[in-house]
């Protein structure tokens, strides 16, 4: 319950404070190239490939978890500066 409310509080606080920022739902179209669509399609191809060759899929999953960790760390660093884990 404690952690739930910590997350809830941080979420509400940050969402409220930064509510003036635009919310991103799709990647932009750059030079007539719909980056979002192409990326979704490319990832779809990759998953189709990894469904056959699973070791690559497992490695990819590991990389994605690490990228997620780095993303969270980046956001934390943006919010609380040097007090975030280095």
């Amino acid at each position, binding site marked *: *319950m*404690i*952690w*739930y409310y910590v*997350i*809830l509080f*941080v*979420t*509400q606080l*940050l*969402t*409220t*404070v*930064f*509510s003036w*920022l*635009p*919310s*991103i*739902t*799709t*990647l*932009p179209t750059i030079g007539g190239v719909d980056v*979002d669509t192409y*990326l*979704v*399609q490319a*990832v*779809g*191809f990759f*998953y*189709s*490939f990894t*469904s*056959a*060759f*699973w*070791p690559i899929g*497992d*490695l990819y*999953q*590991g990389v*994605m*978890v*690490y*990228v*997620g*960790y780095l*993303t969270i*760390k*980046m*956001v934390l660093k*943006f919010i609380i500066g*040097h*007090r975030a*884990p*280095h």
Partner: protein
Amino acid sequence: MYNKLSIGSFLLFLTFAVFPAVSYADTPFYTQPIGTTHSTFQANLGTLTATTSGAFSAGSLNAFDFTANAKTHDLPILGTASVQTYTDVGCAIGVINYAFPTVTVLGDNVEHLETVNLTSPASLSGVHCIVVSLSNNGFFTGAGQYYLSDGAAAPNAVPQMNLYGTAIDTSTHIETVTPVSGSTIATSTAATFAATGFVNSADYISGSYLQIQYALYANSQVAVSNPQLLFTTLNFPITSSGAFSFSTTSPATRGGIYTMQTQIRTPSLINSALNFLGFGQFANVGIATATSTKFTAAAPNGFDVFVASTTASLEAYMASSTISLAACSSWTAFNLGDCLNLIFVPQLQPISQALNDFKNGFLAYAPWGYVTRIVVILSGTATTTLPAISINIPLGNPNIPAQYTNGTFTLDTNAMLQGGKNTLNTVHTSFGGDLSFQDVAEPLVKLSVALALMMFIAHDLLSMRGGRSRSRPTKLS
């Protein structure tokens, strides 16, 4: 002189005799005041049905098209005084079978509904029902021939006009307010604020007015010297007794919950005297009646969202928890282990929901929202079939058209991929059951990946990269 008076009187006589003050297409045949709701009054529709007749089978639903006999028919409602106490006045056309009084008139036969203009009593004498057309009216009849005409020609079935109205509450009261209590409106610079009601003549005092006040709840969260200044006030003078209806637009640009107070205010002799003597600041108006409502402007602010979501999330958390709150809150059911579990161990569903909200809310904001979007795409699970690649290859001798052809070479990457997969899965162990290569090797690969990942993260978190974090000066160091 005598002749002039005679001529004048004659012309005046002609004016009233030939051109009555209120003229209708048909002679008013109904002059009674409006009855209670759905009270029945007989009315002869005159020429509307003079030539209409039809044969109907017994006990069945008979439809009869009146369109061919469509007439414009006017039913004046006379008696201004009584009409003032009714609203939603209307009339309905139906057919009553006198031979079989239990006849049922089907459908909504209201052809025209005219609502009394409550704010202008002078216009009430002109209220009337107009029958524009009648079509596809159905009704049950008994056996035999029935004529839709006036009672003299064929007494079996007589058209009937019902006149109805809803009695108005004549006490001094506020009938409706806009925005409706509990409703949600869009934030706007021109939100509609309105009120309707009635002031009884016994309660009416010249100088009365309707006052609408509204204020954002959130504004009252901070201390102010004069709370009255938080309210936006709208005043509407009430110039006479009777029904009133006021409406105006006023800004409600900030999202959130608003409180709204609507009052019928009346001056008093004491107030007048205080004003006259220069002590207006002590004057106070009387409040004849008042109502307090609240409404929500869309896009509530963060405080409102937080309060609402916290209450809701607490209930959701408890609903999803496998441990009852009683483990912590009850004298008899208290359980230290369960209580510690409830307080400190995250429940999977609400935690994942909270993290998901964090991702969809804060992490979606620009510019880091682009990173989030990329992560979301990369984390997807949908597969897209690999495309087939076709290449046109010229075959033969280009100098001899008869021997020259355009061959197509197709590389079906998806078929190749699936073929490779099938080939790989043909490898099976000869011991320990029928395990494929994937069954044996994948757990080891996943374990390796997980261990490597844990080491990467632990190494990063524990700052074991040559004590770099210690060497970096910070505000706390």
